[in-house]
């Protein structure tokens, strides 16, 4: 009789906590799904049309950022180099890498521009003046773009499937922990820095 009671108590203890256990298991499962598996589903990943080694241009070519990413004569930023600029040195293959061969055969010889994906391309309604930051503000390229110039390869370009913008703009982390422009280039990133440097932030300063 007493044994039966003990057994019954044990069963009822387990069944009484079953709900809690199921809830915790579900919660942990959903957290893992939400934090590990779900975020990558928000992005599509595209390989750049060609691999590119920044470091070799800096080290062996002795080049600087502004050699390929210059300002135009009117002070606007030219962003990526044109094929013509590349072909000034790369009319013939330099070295024997796969990408170099592909570059010459597919782009230089037929005279076709490379359709690079730009990691830090901003939405159309955002205006950013490179010259105001580099020349007036005294910023170096690395402060916003990181040590991109020393990279030996370029990562795939990730697009947010909802907004259509680059992941470098929206930021890597889901919890919004990043603050530096090397990690995220959202409006907060700009305005935080403007406030920190005592620059006021009228809307039209950055929106067009």
């Amino acid at each position, binding site marked *: 009789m007493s044994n039966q009671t003990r057994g019954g108590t044990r069963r009822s203890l387990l069944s009484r906590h079953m709900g809690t256990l199921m809830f915790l298991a579900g919660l942990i499962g959903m957290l893992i799904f939400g934090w590990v598996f779900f975020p990558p589903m928000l992005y599509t990943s595209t390989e750049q049309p060609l691999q590119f080694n920044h470091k070799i241009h800096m080290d062996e070519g002795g080049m600087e950022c502004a050699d390929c990413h210059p300002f135009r004569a009117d002070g606007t930023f030219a962003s990526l180099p044109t094929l013509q600029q590349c072909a000034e040195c790369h009319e013939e293959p330099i070295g024997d890498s796969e990408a170099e061969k592909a570059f010459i055969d597919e782009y230089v010889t037929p005279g076709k521009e490379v359709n690079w994906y730009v990691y830090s391309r901003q939405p159309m309604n955002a205006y950013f*003046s490179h*010259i*105001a930051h580099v020349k007036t503000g005294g910023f170096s390229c690395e402060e916003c773009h990181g040590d991109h110039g020393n990279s030996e390869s370029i990562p795939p370009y990730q697009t947010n499937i909802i907004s259509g913008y680059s992941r470098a703009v929206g930021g890597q982390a889901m919890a919004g922990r990043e603050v530096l422009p090397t990690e995220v280039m959202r409006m907060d990133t700009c305005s935080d820095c403007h406030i920190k440097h005592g620059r006021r932030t009228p809307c*039209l300063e950055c929106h067009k």
Partner: protein
Amino acid sequence: MSRAKEKPEGAPRYAMTIDLDKCTGCGACMVACAVENNVPPAQSGANDRNGTTLMRVYAMSNKQVYPHAKQVFVPMTCQQCEDPPCETVCPQNAVEYDWTTGIVAQIPVRCLGCRYCMVACPYHARAFNWWDPTWPEGMEATLNPDISTRSRGTAEKCNFCHHRRQLARERAVHEDREMCEDEYQPACVEACPVGAITFGNLEDPNSAVSKGFAKPEAFAFVEKLGTKPKIRYLSSQKWVHDMARSGVPGKEATNG
């Protein structure tokens, strides 16, 4: 309003004068404005009330019969008020008085499309995008990259071609000098074939626009509302002054 307190030292305050004695009503300012600001061609079904026009030339008549009939053309755009009624009513902070330029900034991406600003504006200077902007095939190539297109469901208005100021500043920084006044001029000013529109810094007492403001022929439309517009019209005719004082020009006139 305590604008002066917020105004940074030495910041410009842009303003415009439009000489109605010179204006021939040709509409070049309207065309230049639409092209510069990526205003799409009118959709079928668009009319005076629901089409997008940031700059509109009204014909204003004294409603007399010959030989006393008189008419002037009034290019009407955002009056860049010092106390803009559209700013105070906006629930989204999509309208902002920019104290660094004196421009009333309209930020379309923030706009939720309630059109309260359009009701508040006594100058009918605002437009609402009833349609998504579309261009005939191939015409997208003519879009101005310095200004964004606006989506359906947002209000918009003249920002004094502020993007032109940004480009002029970039060039000035590149060339290690200060920006000159004539480097930054809105598209309508450049397009006017008779030079009726003058644009400049009101804080500079020697600028053409400051001198225009001081002329006895200068007036603003419905000044009694106290919005303190930064566009002054010039006219030597008394009836124009009288009519401008009395009411909304759109009400008085047929659309030109």
